[in-house]
């Protein structure tokens, strides 16, 4: 079989830009929420999201196209967030979404209970060590696989497994009266 000419095999700059724009639209909120969960401050989360996508864009032509985008993006957001956390030595205190004015499926009392439980859970998640917290959120909130979490956090599958187990056990102990 004849070799494909390099000019044809290469993805054009226009296609690369279009691909990046599509992924930015698809992942910007996920990046923002992850930064918010790590940092707790919406302004910091927006800044980190912007810096993360600029960094991704800079390395866009050299990236390994055979690997998925999500773990790479999460790892960049994570590194920027951890650097900022170290600098400020702070914990996330971000606000939860305001309760909807009307909840058609459940009554106001049940909605209030659900909200209290949600706040209590977030309070306890914030108290977890960063290593456990990030693994728990990447798995249960962002829906990443163990392999993707390992790649995003630069750890092994075994470490992801044990951190998740520790995080869930700790939360189970602390939320015993609520579950």
């Amino acid at each position: 079989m004849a070799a494909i000419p390099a000019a044809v095999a290469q993805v054009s700059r226009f296609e690369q830009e279009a691909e990046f724009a599509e992924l930015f639209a698809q992942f910007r909120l996920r990046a923002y929420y992850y930064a918010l969960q790590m940092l707790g401050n919406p302004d910091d989360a927006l800044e980190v999201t912007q810096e993360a996508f600029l960094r991704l864009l800079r390395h866009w032509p050299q990236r390994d196209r055979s690997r998925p985008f999500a773990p790479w993006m999460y790892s960049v957001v994570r590194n920027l967030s951890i650097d900022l956390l170290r600098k400020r030595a702070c914990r996330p205190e971000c606000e939860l979404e305001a309760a909807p004015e009307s909840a058609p499926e459940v009554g106001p009392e049940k909605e209030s209970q659900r909200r209290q439980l949600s706040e209590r859970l977030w309070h306890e998640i914030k108290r977890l060590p960063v290593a456990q917290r990030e693994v728990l959120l990447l798995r249960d909130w962002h829906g990443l696989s163990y392999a993707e979490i390992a790649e995003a956090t630069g750890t092994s599958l075994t470490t992801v497994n044990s951190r998740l187990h520790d995080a869930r056990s700790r939360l189970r102990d602390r939320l015993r009266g609520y579950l």
Partner: protein
Amino acid sequence: MLSAYLDEQLTQAETQRVELHLEECASCRAALAQMREIQRLTAQIPFRRPSDEDLEALEHRLSVRAPRRGGWALLLAGVAAWILYGLVALLRHPRWPSVAELIAAAVVIGLLLLFISVLRQRLLERPHDRYRKIKR
């Protein structure tokens, strides 16, 4: 192992072993149910969505800043090449420059002064930049 079982990360043999154990251990069944509930609740924690204006501003800043970097690189490379070419030409054939060459030199010197002023401003702002230590 319960956590990995919950996420369906165990091998078939390990899964069967856990299921056999669960059948006869009420406390592990309770623990699994609580972990499942924590997982469900965590997935539903609502966080405040950024405003549409914030998201648009984010996109705008990205689209403005990305080409700017490439523009600066090209401009600096062009100015450097221009200066080098002018110096070599002057050394090889020393003579009084023409009007066109003087205009070109004025443009180059003007660009250099602009660059130096931007660089100076960046250096003055650097101690207050929150992100200067962040690896990019």
